[in-house]
């Protein structure tokens, strides 16, 4: 049988860089095929070529054995190739049913749409995938995960042969990932081919049949997943062994925790947090984890001063007034690095310099008058300190990779001398080498005496980093684990027990 899609000797260059060099591989029909490689390896260029957004300089693409010259994304769609983006292309004000059939509305009598026909059609598509949605609900009420599933339902309705998923789990919780995987397996059962791109290698081993690895624009190999293991795959991606182990990152037990930096005392916040108390000391890294809705996100905002809880007290250095508003907390030395980097931390259209100096200006650490020359030199120094790869600090921050953007944000806070750091998902959308650099930076901050809070759902990350782990459940702290004891299994078990508190625990 001919491969569903075959890339033959694809070359693609952009001024100044060769993005793809002689890449050839094929995807068998009905396979779940993973595409991996670090940022800049060329995966995305390849996807853009497959979806008609870019044209290759040389080489051909064959779909089911026929050569295809894609001139536009529209043509790719007509050829049966669909890309699922994250939470994009959803018409917020339309209902779920309308979104699913959007662009393919059922035929209507006299030009009037029939609401019931739309619902019938949408339900049929959801049934096919085994999904359940409230069809009449407006799409804006959907969670990020549900939006993604909705997009898949829509893609299926366009008779897609190949569905490309670019980092589909980037903002999903483990439970939601499982639902997504069930849907992907359902697609496979229907004979639809999936090209799956992810930084999460465990996911690839769970779901993919085959893996193609790209490095520096060249094909490393395509292999069946069962012939590989994670360390091997990492070696293929990076060419050298990159270690992500607790011993490497955490660097052994230390007992240097000092004064209390943040004190949380009997904090309650609506239904999100109830009677939460704990301390974070200088010189320790406390990780907080829990399922979506367990209160971790609200806790992040309370710790950073962005929200003031109606009940309970948050102290910073023993002072109750500091956490009363975000500007005051920032001035009091509390850095906040939120999880949704693009929306909550960055000014995407502005320069690296403006972004790295944001807290500096906000807090007025260097006087009232701004001197552009000095400003650039300072930004340059801060970027160098954090090893940000950037040629010109005046270039827009959106041209940087996720890892470099995150380093810029860390630089922003080290510049103003913050001693307390609240991180939310510190390595979301960051490739593995940058991840490890960020982990080392976090441990470095702790070693220098800072108090660091990491709120994360990445259990491997928590195990590698934490001195202490708090596991949240229904707005309460369900348990506390010492860092070395907080293996992925231990935290996961505690979370599962929490979720199924009253129910029978299957595992």
């Amino acid at each position, binding site marked *: 049988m001919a491969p569903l899609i075959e890339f033959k000797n694809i070359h693609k260059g952009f001024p100044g860089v060769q993005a793809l060099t002689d890449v050839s591989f094929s995807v068998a029909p009905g396979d779940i095929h993973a595409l991996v490689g670090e940022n800049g390896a060329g995966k995305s260029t390849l996807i853009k070529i497959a979806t008609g957004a870019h044209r290759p300089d040389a080489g051909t693409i064959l779909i089911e054995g026929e050569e295809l010259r894609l001139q536009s994304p529209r043509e790719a769609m007509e050829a049966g190739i669909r890309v699922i983006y994250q939470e994009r292309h959803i018409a917020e004000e339309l209902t779920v049913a309308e979104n699913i059939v959007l662009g393919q509305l059922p035929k209507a009598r006299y030009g009037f749409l029939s609401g019931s026909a739309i619902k019938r059609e949408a339900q049929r598509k959801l049934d096919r995938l085994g999904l359940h949605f409230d069809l009449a609900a407006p799409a804006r009420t959907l969670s990020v995960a549900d939006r993604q599933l909705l997009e898949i339902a829509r893609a299926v309705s366009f008779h897609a042969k190949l569905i490309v998923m670019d980092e589909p789990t980037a903002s999903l919780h483990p439970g939601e990932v499982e639902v997504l995987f069930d849907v992907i397996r359902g697609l496979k059962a229907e004979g639809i081919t999936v090209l799956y791109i992810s930084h999460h290698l465990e996911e690839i081993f769970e779901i993919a049949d085959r893996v193609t690895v790209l490095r520096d624009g060249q094909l490393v190999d395509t292999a069946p997943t069962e012939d590989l293991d994670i360390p091997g795959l990492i070696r293929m991606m990076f060419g050298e062994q990159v270690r992500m182990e607790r011993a490497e990152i955490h660097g052994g037990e230390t007992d240097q925790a000092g004064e209390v930096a943040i004190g949380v005392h009997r904090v309650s916040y609506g239904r999100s947090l109830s009677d939460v108390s704990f301390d974070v000391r200088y010189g320790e890294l406390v990780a907080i984890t829990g399922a979506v809705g367990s209160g971790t996100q609200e806790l992040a905002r309370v710790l950073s001063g962005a929200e003031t809880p109606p009940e309970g007290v948050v102290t910073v250095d023993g002072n109750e007034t500091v956490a009363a508003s975000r500007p005051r907390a920032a001035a009091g030395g509390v850095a906040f690095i939120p999880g949704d980097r693009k929306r909550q931390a960055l000014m995407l259209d*502005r320069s690296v310099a403006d972004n790295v100096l944001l807290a500096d200006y906000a807090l007025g650490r260097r006087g009232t008058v701004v001197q552009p020359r000095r400003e650039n030199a300072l930004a340059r120094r801060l970027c160098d300190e954090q090893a940000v790869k950037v040629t010109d600090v005046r270039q827009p921050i959106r041209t940087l990779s996720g890892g470099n953007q995150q380093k810029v944000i860390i630089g922003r806070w080290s510049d103003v001398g913050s001693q307390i750091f609240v991180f939310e998902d510190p390595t979301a959308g960051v490739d593995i080498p940058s991840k490890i650099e960020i982990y080392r930076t976090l441990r470095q901050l702790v070693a220098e005496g800072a108090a660091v809070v990491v709120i994360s759902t990445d259990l491997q990350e928590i195990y590698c980093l934490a001195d202490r782990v708090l596991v949240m459940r229904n707005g309460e702290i369900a348990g506390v684990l010492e860092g070395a004891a907080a293996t992925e299994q231990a935290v996961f078990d505690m979370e599962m027990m929490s979720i199924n508190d009253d129910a029978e625990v299957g595992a």
Partner: protein
Amino acid sequence: MTGDPTRKPSAESFRWPSVISPIGRENIRVYVPLVVAIIGLSIYTGSRNDLFLTWNNFELILLASAPLGILAVGQTLLLVGGHLDLSVGSMVSMTSVIVALLIRDHSLGEVPILVVVLIIGALVGLIYGLIVAFIRVPSFILTLGGLSVISSIGLTLSNTATIGVREGFGSLRSTELLGFRLPVIIWMAVLVVAGFGLHFTRFGRNVFAMGSSEEAAYLSGVPTKLTTVVLFMVNSMLAAVAGVLFFARIGAGAPRGGIGLELTTIAAIVLGGASLAGGRGTILGSFLGVLTLGFVSSSLTFLDVPESYSPLVFGGVLIGAVLITAIAEIQRQRASTTVVEHSPESDADPADDNDTEIPKPRQGAE
């Protein structure tokens, strides 16, 4: 607008003087067409009418533009911070009426009058600022309501009639300094102070941050609520100053005199390169925008163009300018998506950005 990293070598070899760099380098492609338009228009009109290209006419254009110019400064500050005030035209009307009444009925001196109208301006701005900052009502809708309320106050106070007053603020008409009359000098002073404040102080940086991403700014410690209140207060106080200049120009309190000024202000600012989406704009650009409209308006008079055509010309200038910048922006984005993101220096993953195929629709000109 961001510097084009593809031309980095030339940008590096040529260093802008430090005063120009923050306001100039990135916006030069906005300024140049406006200056060219002004010069071109002057040459054309001058060739048809000898009186156009005279110092006297130049001064008259500046004088006529001063109220609009001052409004544009306040509005630019607000727009850069991500807000908007649609009630500045009615503020001008109401202020002119209040000034006229204070002179006619209370024989108040100029300084007390100025104090009164500045306090009124500050109060209006304070109310707007507090509502926008704490109740989070969109400023567009709030100030649209404010427009009606304020114009109604002006109409009520004046019994809907224009109040002619002979005396009062004569100095604004007669006093000259460095060859310019006082309103022009005041306008220039406002420009310099606001330009410094917006482009060379940390307050200005906070305004840009707030307009670029309010949430990122707040979470980074920018006191966004305070900044919002200050911006609205400054804007309304400048509107009050513009109202006094307007009064001095026509020598009357005109309850309908400021109708439409808010939209002209926005037109001038958009010509000057500000974005209605916030986070982008310069004082110099807005000044050039106001000046362009002033020159167009004067040319129409000197060319004897019937009055009914002048809105058409204004509309044409605005739409034309917006189209040109929008097209330039699309081309720039096309160029930058294929070049910048793949340039070897930036290790960006080209795919990090899914926007590349679809240029984001933006409000206003860039």
